[in-house]
């Protein structure tokens, strides 16, 4: 069964450094999402991406964050200058266009620790 993959599974970085989290969505999917979960809290939406542009973003997704689909298979989340509070699990998800069911498929997550 096709699945969403994410790399790396874990990343440790120093405050102020740039990080890029990578996702490979399911191949025929056209809607892409990033969510994050701070330890012990609920999963929060960051950004959705469709037709090569951001379709919606949350208040969390400020100028330090960016997303890109650099080629036909990858979807990346960049944090330009990490802060301690960016430490979280980051999930990528994808969905097919005009799909029934309307299921979003989640990757296994990248656990980011900012020191």
């Amino acid at each position, binding site marked *: 069964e096709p699945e969403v993959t994410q790399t790396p599974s874990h990343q440790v970085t120093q405050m102020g450094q740039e990080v890029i989290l990578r996702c490979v969505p399911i191949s025929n999917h056209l809607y892409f*999402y990033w969510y994050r979960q701070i330890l012990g809290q609920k999963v929060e*939406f960051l950004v*959705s991406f469709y037709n090569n542009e951001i379709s919606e973003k949350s208040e969390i997704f400020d100028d330090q964050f960016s997303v890109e689909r650099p080629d036909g298979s990858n979807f990346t989340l960049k944090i330009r200058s990490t802060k301690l509070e960016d430490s979280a699990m980051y*999930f990528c998800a994808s969905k097919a266009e005009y799909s029934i069911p*309307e*299921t*979003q498929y*989640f990757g296994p997550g990248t656990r980011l620790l900012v020191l």
Partner: protein
Amino acid sequence: GIQVEQSPPDLILQEGANSTLRCNFSDSVNNLQWFHQNPWGQLINLFYIPSGTKQNGRLSATTVATERYSLLYISSSQTTDSGVYFCAAGEYGNKLVFGAGTILRVKS
């Protein structure tokens, strides 16, 4: 925007017991999903169920869209069922809004 509330926040069961988890949502939705977060933090998709009833082994789910709630039933619970169960709801193509989750502990 959509709001999602889950109850109970915590649940402790003896192995073999049955349980019901509830999810209330504030608006009509096109998407409602139940997830199990395992000890490694992965979100395992259990059901896509914006309406109706589905069953998968010992798990089943029912969503009554007109009354804006969904129920997840776990029968004959096992220790491997432990973890956090999340309900998430959304409109077509849009973000999922997650509830705060139910922490389930199954004791042997």
